[in-house]
């Protein structure tokens, strides 16, 4: 664990000594703030109109009307931005030749991968945490249900963790950071649109495609439903990415 942590510390240092982490985090906060602001604005005007009719007034729900769409928007932003966070993890080491230092140290390949992955998760956590601060004010001025709210953020974190797992894999393939980012982005997009393909598919195929799609699993969480199959999906997706990374690094050395 100590070994993993020393890699993590080093990665965090290089994230925050280069502009990349600052830019990604600030843009994310900015976008998140904008979405939140406009959703609240829209919610206000809707709530005002609905207040005139007692039937509709019961339907007013800040979780459904503000947070669910916010989480959906943020999930797309994550898809666009996280490949930039993971792209340098292994490709930079390869390009700079520092890979030789890591792989001739007494650390195992697994420890190195986990250390790097953990660092990207910490940045992700930090990013979500900062973006969540403004939304906390809804608890002062309104009464949203805390559980779906927390589950939504948990869902975003898990979704991001899956994205990053895949990103780590692509960065171990190439020494070019842009190639790594584009490949990650392309793969994520593919998994995103699988649910569109699922519309036209029938029977078993429809189930399979729906299961594979990122966002089908995300829906439930924004509504406050925690399904273990969603958890398993994201965790196994992340694990799969890391496992592929491990195989790539090992096989490259044996070739």
């Amino acid at each position: 664990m100590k070994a993993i942590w020393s890699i993590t510390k080093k990665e965090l240092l290089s994230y925050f000594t280069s502009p990349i982490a600052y830019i990604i985090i600030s843009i994310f906060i900015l976008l998140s703030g904008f979405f939140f602001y406009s959703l609240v604005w829209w919610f206000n005007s809707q709530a005002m109109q609905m207040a005139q009719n007692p039937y509709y007034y019961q339907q007013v729900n800040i979780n459904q009307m503000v947070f669910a769409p916010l989480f959906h928007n943020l999930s797309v932003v994550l898809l666009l931005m996280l490949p930039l966070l993971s792209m340098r993890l292994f490709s930079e080491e390869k390009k700079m030749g520092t890979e030789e230092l890591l792989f001739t140290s007494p650390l195992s390949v697994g420890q190195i991968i986990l250390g790097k992955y953990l660092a990207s998760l910490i940045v992700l956590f930090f990013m979500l945490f900062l973006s969540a601060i403004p939304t906390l004010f809804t608890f002062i001025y309104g009464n949203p249900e805390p559980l779906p709210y927390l589950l939504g953020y948990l869902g975003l974190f898990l979704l991001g963790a899956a994205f990053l797992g895949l990103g780590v894999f692509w960065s171990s393939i190439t020494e070019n950071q842009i190639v790594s980012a584009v490949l990650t982005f392309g793969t994520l997009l593919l998994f995103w649109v699988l649910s569109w393909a699922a519309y036209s598919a029938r029977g078993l195929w429809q189930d399979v495609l729906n299961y594979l799609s990122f966002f089908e699993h995300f829906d439930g969480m924004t509504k406050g439903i925690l399904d273990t199959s969603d958890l398993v999906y994201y965790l196994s997706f992340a694990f799969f990415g890391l496992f592929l990374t491990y195989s790539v690094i090992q096989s490259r050395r044996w070739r």
Partner: protein
Amino acid sequence: MIETENLTKKYGDLVAIKELSFKVEKGKIWGLLGPNAAGKTTTMRILTGYLPATEGRAVVAGYDVFEQAEAVKQSIGYLPETVPLYPEMTVESYLGFVAEIKKVPKSQKKAAIERTVEIAGLKSVRKRLIKNISRGYRQRVGIAQAIIHNPQVIILDEPTIGLDPAQIVEIRQLIRSLKEEHTVMLSTHILAEVTQVCDGVVIINEGKLMASGSLEELTKAYKEKEGLYLRLKKADNEVLNLFRQLPGIEKADLEGSEIKLEWSKGKDLREQVVRLCLEKQLGLLEMRSTAINIEELYLRIVSGGMEQ
């Protein structure tokens, strides 16, 4: 300290090194010598556990490189050809990071950094970012990261490449100073470096072992003739003839302003030569042995393919 047995590495169809067997003793500086693309880097990468060999085995510091990889990595310090540096770190934080991944106990980490900074002469740059220090200092940081965990064996891949002459002298001094506590193996294709720094050599060419041993042994084994260079006040045919008449001298020739004398291996005619010079009052100014001439030795070994 380092021992290989039939070490072979293939990249697809390309054979990088072939049935390499050599032995390196403890506490000396060994040069791994060979022309470009001879397999030096591949050999070093296998010894450090970065690459696995296709066949054969290697033992470093008593551990098998393939079966006890972690123990081997713990007892090796390695400077790859491209110095593995993180430009955004300071020298000190970089050394701290390397100490951590080389599993230096936390209580000794500070002392290890101090010691290494001292040995590698990095005091003046320790707080600076690596991207802002000169090439010579970067090379020193590279050597510093290789010795931070006080390994038994230090492997340096072309440690002086790309440096200016003054820096080369400094780095060579640094490497020589490591000899007392560590076994050092360095690769190079600069012959002068070997005579100046190393105690022994392993010569490889096209992935095959050509020769290995201490420099003296090798020169003795490969030299057919022994001889002297003489600088005299007067050097002409008359003088040459005087030497040619001396029993045992096989060749006496003029090379520039110097006279080169040769006799067959095993004899020692130096005394007779001096006596002759004094008796005939030839005005002896300078005299040196033709002994170690690494260029000649190397060319003979690499092109001749003689094996020991």
